[in-house]
């Protein structure tokens, strides 16, 4: 009966009524093993999350280069520098561009495929596996394959675009400042549509049958049913996906590292890639920490806005 709540035990233990601290201590002694169960997790969190965040904050107020012995306190200089830093600004623009295009495309395509698979379809499992394959492919590998597909001279993409008459001569996808980002986005969409699809499929299957029956009586079919019932009832799924996808998109790195190295002309240098270079190529870790906090603030604000905007629309 050790698990019984303190209140039911209290009348038999008058001492516990005396002081809340005494009561808490007693309870802690009695349940000591619970703390033991939590210890491994809490030690890891304490060192690599809590201490790390505090330390990052400390770093962001110092000129902290791992190669230089002197690490002077510089106040808010790093943050001030951030505001005037064109490269950081450019990285934010590139990241927003990437996010604004890749997230809607991924979610839209994922929803479309999920809707199709939710029809009376044979081989549904087969198709679901097919679209999910890129999700389980390591990102590094996906980026390598696509880099080869985009190859200017021997790439498959150019070959078929020329064959179809859409372009006249090969495009240098990853070397063209205007095409590099769209090329990276296409790779990311291919990689993550399957995830959106599976989440939407789960959402679709949680819609109660009754809604459709009622709609049928009211004569709502096809597009109207999709617009008035299915999509509104999926809004909590959409919100969940939107938040997860935007947070993921803000942190895009691997595709960039492998396919473009941030180029050409820094046009694919995203915030995380920029932080990586600042911290681990230039070893300017104080400034990079300030950037990380800047990015954190941005992600936080975005999530809040998404919750605000969509809360009114979400049906539970």
């Amino acid at each position, binding site marked *: 009966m050790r698990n019984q709540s303190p209140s039911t035990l209290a009348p038999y233990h008058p001492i516990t009524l005396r002081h809340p601290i005494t009561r808490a201590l007693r309870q802690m002694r009695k349940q000591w093993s619970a703390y033991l169960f939590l210890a491994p997790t809490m030690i890891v969190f304490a060192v690599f999350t809590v201490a790390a965040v505090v330390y990052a904050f400390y770093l962001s107020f110092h000129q902290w280069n791992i190669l230089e012995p002197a690490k002077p306190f510089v106040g808010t200089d790093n943050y001030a520098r951030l505001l005037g830093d064109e490269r950081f600004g450019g990285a934010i623009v590139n990241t927003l561009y990437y996010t604004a295009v890749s997230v809607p495309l991924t979610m839209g395509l994922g929803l479309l495929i999920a809707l199709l698979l939710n029809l009376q379809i044979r081989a549904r499992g087969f198709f679901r596996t097919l679209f999910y394959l890129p999700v389980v492919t390591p990102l*590094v*590998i996906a980026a390598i394959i696509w880099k*080869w597909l985009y190859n200017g001279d021997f790439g498959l993409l150019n070959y078929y675009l020329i064959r179809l008459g859409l372009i006249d001569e090969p495009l240098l996808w990853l070397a063209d400042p205007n095409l590099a980002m769209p090329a990276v986005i296409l790779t990311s969409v291919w990689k993550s549509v399957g995830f959106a699809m599976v989440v939407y499929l789960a959402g679709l299957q949680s819609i109660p049958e009754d809604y459709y029956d009622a709609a049928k009586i009211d004569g709502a079919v096809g597009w109207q049913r999709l617009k008035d019932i299915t999509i509104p009832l999926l809004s909590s799924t959409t919100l969940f996906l939107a938040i997860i996808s935007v947070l993921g998109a803000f942190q895009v790195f691997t595709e960039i590292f492998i396919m473009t190295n941030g180029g050409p002309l820094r046009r694919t240098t995203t915030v995380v890639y920029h932080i990586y270079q600042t911290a681990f190529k230039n070893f300017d870790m104080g400034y990079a920490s300030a950037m990380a906090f800047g990015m954190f603030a941005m992600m936080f604000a975005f999530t809040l806005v998404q919750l605000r905007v969509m809360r009114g629309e979400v049906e539970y």
Partner: protein
Amino acid sequence: MAVIARERGVTRPRETVSSQSWRGWGGKALVYLVLIVVGALFVAPFVWMVSGSLQNIGDIFRWPPQWIPRNPSLDNYARFFKAQRIGQFFFNSAYVAVAVTFLQLLFASLAAYAFAKRQFPGRDALFLLTLGTMMIPGQVTLIPTYIILKHIPFFGGNDWLGQGGHGWLDSYWGLIIPQGASAFAIFLLRQYMRTIPNDLLDAARIDGASELRIWAQIVMPLCRPALAALGIFTFTYQWDNFYWPLVIVSSEELRTLPLGLALFVVRNRTAWDLLMAGSVVATLPVLIVFLIFQRHFVRGIAMSGLK
């Protein structure tokens, strides 16, 4: 017991949903056509990768491209295994992924049990803290974690003050330990464990079972579906992990497969024959895991935040 252990996840697809407006033969055909075309586009890169891995470099650089290898051979694989310490990379990836998965499941299930089924002062505060860690993006903690690892005492040539050596940087410790705790895993398992009736645990307590024993012999077996889903997720995520190894590994013998391949791309720009073979090698393990445990994947996604 049957009630607790019953599968919580995606139900079988409903047959009646949406059949109405697509009854026509033409509509059906259109749906299949779209699915087949889009599906083919999705698989094409894989086919291209496998095909390329079986061709020699001359055939790979042939125009127009060859889908079906003229002289298929496994020569690229042999050369790739020779040129790169691929066996070592493969082992590193597997070792780190398995170790992190094991640690996360162990630590998370212990913590989740405490959060779900124990009453103790500070529980809610610690749980909130745990959830709070999910809000912190990896970018913020990455740089300080790097510095903290560098100064772990007594490791990598460090003295007791953590000075002088490289600490846990460039070591399995550094690759594994910082990822040992996962708030997401704790949250998911806690939700799952809450469905276990207290009576069951109380009965065991009256019989004199220790908390550790209750966790090991009652709670863990009941959580098997959640643990399976979580384990597969964690394993594939870790197999895919690139950023962390890139940052902390400097010696060649500690590179994981994604890191080894990525550095190979960056240095050997045109060795596409070897790269395609390497890509197949790196993709196969997760692909096999996925194809075997597909049900758990889908269920895991359903468990991870959807009603």
